[in-house]
């Protein structure tokens, strides 16, 4: 009987969710590893001196292109600076850009999504078309165009990466608002005679926010990668200390002989993105977002 099978199916799905929630030990090990990694990255961003004692601005051609192991942990680049030190000092730029770009994208995107979802009608249509237009370009390409147009400063990089994440946030928020707006308690607020502003900020927004928060964690990872890509292509800010993307590109000509210059920044980026998205998964389960 189809109905029975359907019921059995729901049961099995319920079971799977249950397993996910009760948390198998592999998951919690990964979670703790992610937390530990992000703690290190955060420490590097806040007080790099604790992790790397030597000055990243001092060039020493005599120590150029030393392999990992002897003397330096991760080897040195072509100007003799320690790759490990540069990675530690590059963390700040990565985190600042990741966090600020995501904050910008989330704010702008969520506001657009909220307005579109709540007002509907032609406003929704105009915002929707605008978002569609942004979405026509892949995120990296969009950020690239914007960064190229604005010129390479840290602020512009943040703007470029942030704008690239706007469409995602706008869509998620709009969808959530549409769902929550249909809930009875919103109707109840309306029947109580509350103002639209109160209805939106007290009753709709708090109930629509969770998926955007989850998305933000994932988005931080994406933003770090996009920012690194732009830096790699030379569209990042010109700074004395190279960020992770610049370090990647510094190592590019030496890839055949001195593989460590590019490889370690690559691994650092990958680990950071994985850690952030695992934390996002955990947060999603905690906030019970479907």
């Amino acid at each position, binding site marked *: *009987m189809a*109905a*029975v099978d*359907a019921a*059995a199916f729901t049961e099995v799905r319920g079971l799977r969710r*249950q397993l996910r929630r009760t948390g198998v030990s592999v998951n919690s090990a990964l979670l703790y590893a992610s937390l530990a990694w992000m703690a290190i990255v955060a420490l590097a961003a806040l007080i790099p001196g604790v992790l790397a004692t030597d000055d990243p601005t001092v060039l020493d051609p005599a120590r150029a292109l030393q392999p990992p192991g002897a003397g330096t942990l991760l080897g040195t680049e072509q100007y003799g600076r320690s790759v490990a030190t540069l990675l530690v000092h590059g963390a700040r730029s990565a985190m600042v850009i990741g966090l600020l770009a995501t904050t910008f994208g989330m704010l702008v995107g969520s506001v657009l999504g909220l307005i579109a979802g709540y007002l509907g009608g032609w406003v929704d249509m105009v915002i929707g078309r605008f978002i569609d237009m942004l979405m026509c370009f892949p995120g990296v390409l969009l950020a690239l165009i914007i960064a190229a147009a604005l010129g390479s400063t840290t602020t512009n990089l943040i703007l470029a990466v942030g704008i690239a994440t706007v469409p995602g946030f706008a869509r998620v928020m709009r969808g959530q608002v549409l769902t929550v707006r249909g809930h009875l308690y919103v109707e109840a607020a309306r029947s109580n005679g509350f103002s639209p502003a109160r209805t939106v900020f007290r009753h709709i927004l708090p109930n629509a926010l969770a998926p955007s928060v989850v998305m933000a964690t994932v988005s931080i990872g994406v933003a770090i990668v996009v920012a690194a890509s732009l830096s790699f292509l030379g569209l990042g800010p010109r700074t004395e200390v190279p960020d992770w993307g610049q370090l990647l590109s510094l190592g590019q000509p030496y890839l055949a002989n001195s593989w460590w210059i590019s490889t370690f920044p690559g691994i650092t980026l990958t680990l950071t993105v994985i850690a952030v998205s695992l934390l996002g998964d955990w947060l999603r389960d905690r906030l019970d977002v479907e």
Partner: protein
Amino acid sequence: MTTTARTMLALTGLRVDVDRHGTAIPLVRDATLQVRAGEIVCLVGESGSGKSVTARTIMGLTQLNPRMSVGGSAVFDGDELFDLSAERMRRLRGRELAMVFQEPLSSLDPVWNIDSQLREGLRRRERVSQKAETGRLLEALAEVGIHDGSRVLRSYPHQLSGGMCQRVMIAMALLARPKLLIADEPTTALDVTIQAQILELIDKLRRDEDMSVLLVTHDMGVAADLADRVVVMYAGRVVEDASPRDAFARSAHPYTRGLLACIPPMIGERPEQLPAIPGTVPDPSNLPTGCSYHPRCPRASERCTVEDPPLTNVAGTAVACWRPGDVVIGEDELVTVRGQAS
């Protein structure tokens, strides 16, 4: 009532626990009941009484959830259901045992039309030619009062009304010619005029096919209309098992009386306030000591607060109460609650 007919289903001391963070929470504590061939037994109770869990356990559905553990015995037509292999159980479902759910629309798969869903059910039972199949489907639909069967077969669930979907669900159950139909609140989501039609249909199938029915309902009116036997559950236990006449006119358990008393009358004097049962159904994870009804019971004595009464048979009525009543409901016996805390 056909007391001499053979027993189709016998539940004895059925127990269902759900594991919540390591503690076993009893959803059904002691469900004992029989359904005889050709009999309609109505399992009544409020939400949280365990009546739906009981029904789903008979079908082997609660057991699919690893957090549920089932104890006691369920003998169906001579076979102990809880000893059957998963494969045997699966074969039993949809053949000798069929179930109809409360939400007709969500019990049908939205992506297939009625034709393919019914055909799938039929093919599990027997293989006949395509043409004969279609004939059987139309026949089954006609049996449940759908006369434009070919249109309905082409339809998708969302194109049909709730009553129509419920008919299709029943037709699907009937294609298997089950010995026992378990109907879990089959008319709760339907309008009263449609409910009347579905109840008539179930009654007719019982008469014509000698099918046994276990009908789960919260509506005492539905039970009064259809039941050969009324089984009342409260907080996971069967508290009363009686013939309809006894259950309604001479309820032995104070809970049954309370339930009946709070239904507003359709004729005669209207009471100023309804004699409501105070309080609410207890949470299964936090059951009162003794008889779980005692905090709400107007007849509760000292003993009721410490000792859980066993289900005892007295003159054809089984009742789990230390102080069963045998008088017709008197209003003075019931507490009138004026908006008291629940």
